[in-house]
């Protein structure tokens, strides 16, 4: 039957007496399925599959390595190549802007980041730049209150850039300023414009795309559109505590070349973890 994961697929190679082109072609088709099942963007999955096939057919396994391990290693290397270099988030003074589609976890993650920096002795301010979603201000204020971090916002204000400018002034001299923004998608011109204006006002050092592990094929194209609007510096993948493989988020990294900096592993304010590429990839290939 259909291999539900890469690990199942590669088991086929173990039982084969020797690896020939026909077997590679068969396995490669199954690898493509496993990548699509993990929500890797279809165009990316196709490109990856072609490269894996080329390498499996032309490269000789290193001495002492089995053919199976060789193919596994190629798949692994091609995926790690997409993730690029991981980077540490500096603890020096800087401004962070959170962006992304609707309901991805931006506001929750803004609270998590505030706690992360506060625990490391930094003075943090949160700015409620989402003037659209009902009670977005209340949500961020409650999160700030839980961890003793001030929140700037005005419940009735409808102009996000103005709110952000006031927040920047209020928290002038703080070590870290984190700006929450409302959910949006690339086809909403007025919201994309708003996001650009907020970036102009705040001049953030970091612009993080918050994307959940569940997102499918639209993740790559949407991430590219956000990147074209405000040049992203990092990606945060939320909801890694579910069963979703986060291939959409990987496609977003590939589309923007912005590295994953953190992952969210639950709803609680301390459930933010550093990104661990090998663990992520083996979970993706499941």
């Amino acid at each position: 039957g259909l291999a539900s994961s890469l690990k199942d697929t590669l088991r086929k190679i173990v039982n084969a007496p020797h690896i020939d082109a026909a077997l590679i072609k068969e396995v490669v088709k199954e690898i493509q399925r496993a990548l699509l099942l993990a929500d890797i963007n279809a165009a990316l999955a196709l490109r990856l599959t072609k490269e894996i096939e080329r390498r499996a057919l032309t490269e000789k396994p290193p001495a002492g390595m089995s053919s199976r391990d060789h193919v596994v290693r190629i798949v692994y290397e091609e995926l790690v190549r997409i993730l690029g270099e991981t980077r540490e988030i500096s603890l020096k003074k800087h401004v962070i802007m959170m962006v992304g589609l609707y309901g991805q976890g931006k506001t929750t993650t803004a609270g998590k980041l505030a706690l992360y920096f506060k625990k490391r002795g930094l003075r943090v301010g949160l700015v409620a730049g989402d003037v659209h979603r009902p009670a977005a201000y209340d949500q961020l204020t409650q999160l700030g209150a839980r961890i003793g971090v001030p929140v700037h916002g005005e419940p009735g204000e409808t102009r996000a850039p103005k709110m952000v400018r006031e927040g920047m002034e209020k928290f002038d001299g703080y070590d870290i300023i984190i700006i929450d923004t409302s959910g949006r998608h690339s086809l909403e011109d007025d919201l994309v414009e708003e996001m650009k204006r907020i970036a102009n006002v705040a001049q953030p050092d970091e612009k993080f795309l918050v994307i959940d592990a569940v997102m499918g094929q639209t993740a790559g194209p949407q991430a590219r559109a956000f990147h074209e609007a405000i040049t992203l510096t990092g990606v945060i993948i939320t909801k890694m505590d579910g069963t979703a493989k986060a291939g959409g988020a990987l496609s977003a990294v590939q589309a923007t070349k912005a590295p994953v900096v953190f992952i969210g592993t639950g709803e609680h304010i301390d459930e933010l973890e550093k990104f661990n590429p090998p663990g992520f990839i083996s979970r993706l290939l499941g």
Partner: protein
Amino acid sequence: RRLSESRVGELLDELEIALLESDVALPAVEAIKKRVKQDLVDRKVRLGTDVPDMVEEALKDAITAVLAEPVVLPPKARRHPSRFEPPFFSEFVDRHDKPVVLMFVGINGTGKTTTIAKIGHMLMKQGYSIVIAAGDTFRAGAIQQLEKHADQLGVKLIRHEAGSDPASVAYDAIEHARARRRDVVLVDTAGRMQTDTGLMEEMSKIERVANPSLVIYVGDALAGNDAVNEAMAFNRAVGVDAVVLTKVDADAKGGAALSIRYATGAPVIFVGTGQEYKDLEAFSPRWMVDRIFG
């Protein structure tokens, strides 16, 4: 001439990419391919027929048929053994004892609370009286979010303190509606991952206490293959009767509709097409097929 299995299989493999690119989950794709194969293999074909076109039309028809099939018996038949087909809201509310209780469930961030406000707005326009139960007592700002919606709609909100038992909020809202002869109670619940057994058990308890007329699963059109795992788990826990697919305006083709129908057997009744109250439309299978095949 007869259509061979290998020819049909080949053509379906090509069409499969369009489905996968539209976020139809792989298990749902396999199921629909099998259905088309059974239909087409060995069928007589007149000379000159455009076979690829014929296979594509057969696939479109199969998808439409699966999505449009009337649902005869929902998972927990005790709720309402009769057939229901969208658009059924006003018929459904008219036919049932009052108050009709609608419970909204789903993973985190899919659009449950916003969809409650939209459905409340729609039902009020149709002349029904509404009560909303603030059953998300966990997430920061969740109660205030519903307060804002209830104020804008001019509807009574039953709320308890943050951290209180969601089932008791649902119970109080239903009692309030019964006492004041309100037509419909909309029960919000907190988002939850289907892997969190404690939260899934909490949801089952809310369902037992609220004894809803319908459990409405709110799924996100942007979701990929995981839509199947999620919907299956919610269906196992509380029995999904109907589905609302949100955020179809955000560039999503909407293949998750087929995934969720495959996973639960429940019909998609509405799609969310934006963040305003008016942005709720009856789901049409043909609409989705046209989006996927362009």
